[in-house]
């Protein structure tokens, strides 16, 4: 009986080792580039400031009642689960609604999330340059309702490696555990 258990355990270990070695490194995606915007404290912010960190970039707006707070909360759950392991992961929230999102509004909004996401604003021209570079859709749509206008926007989280290049896109409808796995893959590259 002991022998059988030993054989089964050996097989399981062998499978887990072979699975681990199979995990492919994430490719570098040919989207995105460096940008300069204004952070929620009113300071100039350049993406290269975060070189050496893993970075999440999420495009949204404070007038968005569902997808944006839900996604930012999901990122919050990531930080909570990772604990100190997420100290080298930074989150950027780029407003695609420069008309309504002032620096002051964004500062208050970001302050709600304990993990310290950095809110970024810019002129419409600056924001359009960034959304074009990351190939995201951010369209104003008049609804005729009381919400003024709504924004159709890409909700993917862009995950950048330590060199500032986009390595993976995360759909916020997926589980936090998937986000953790992606970050762990990037961290494995350090070894």
């Amino acid at each position, binding site marked *: 009986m002991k022998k059988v258990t030993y054989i089964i355990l050996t097989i399981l270990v062998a499978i887990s080792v072979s699975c681990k070695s199979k995990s492919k490194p994430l490719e570098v995606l040919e989207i995105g580039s460096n940008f300069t915007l204004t952070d929620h404290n009113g300071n100039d912010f350049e993406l290269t400031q975060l070189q050496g960190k893993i970075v999440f970039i999420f495009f949204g707006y404070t007038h968005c009642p569902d997808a944006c707070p839900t996604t930012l*909360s999901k990122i919050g*759950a990531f930080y909570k689960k990772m604990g100190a392991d997420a100290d080298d992961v930074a989150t950027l929230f780029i407003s695609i609604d420069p008309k309504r999102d002032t620096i*002051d509004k964004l500062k208050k*909004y970001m302050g*709600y999330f304990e993990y310290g996401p950095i809110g970024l604003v810019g002129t419409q021209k600056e924001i359009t340059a960034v959304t074009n570079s990351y190939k995201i859709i951010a369209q104003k749509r008049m609804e005729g309702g*009381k*919400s003024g206008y709504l924004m159709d*926007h*890409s909700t993917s989280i862009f995950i950048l490696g330590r060199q500032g290049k986009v390595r993976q896109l995360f759909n916020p409808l997926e589980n*936090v555990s998937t986000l953790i796995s992606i970050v762990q893959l990037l961290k494995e590259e350090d070894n």
Partner: protein
Amino acid sequence: MKSLNNITRTSKLLNVNKLFSLIAMLSIMLFASACEKKSTHTDIMVVKPWISEIIPGSTVTAGYMQIMNHTDKDDVLTGVKADISKFVEIHEMSQVDGVMRMRRLDSVPVAQGKSVEFKTGGMHIMFIETTKELKIGEKVPVTLVFQNRGDLAVELEVKSIKSIHEH
């Protein structure tokens, strides 16, 4: 004399048995009617109604719930009234090719015997230009307006949007 006693005892036993049967039958009938009452709903039911606390810097928030139509006919949710914001609208989110689109709905059908869910990433009640602060745990009175049922008062519990991922 002995046989007379036996007859009396037998008849007493029969009466006791009859009494037991009667009590048992009554109990079953009472239990059945109680069960029947429990399982028969004749109204529109709202389950787990909640509203996200307003994030500082924002003047919008969203409400969620499940609406179950236990009436004997189809109905339509035609609007929502609340005094925590200037405007209230019904919105639906949908993700098409990675793009999140939000559109306003004029009404939401709730077919007889069916339920409709308002949840994050799907339909929600959008409160626009909020005029009050909401505290976690507070109950926000809201009126759902149905075409047939008329007004239905519900209370949405204020929760943190952060809590939905904390499992």
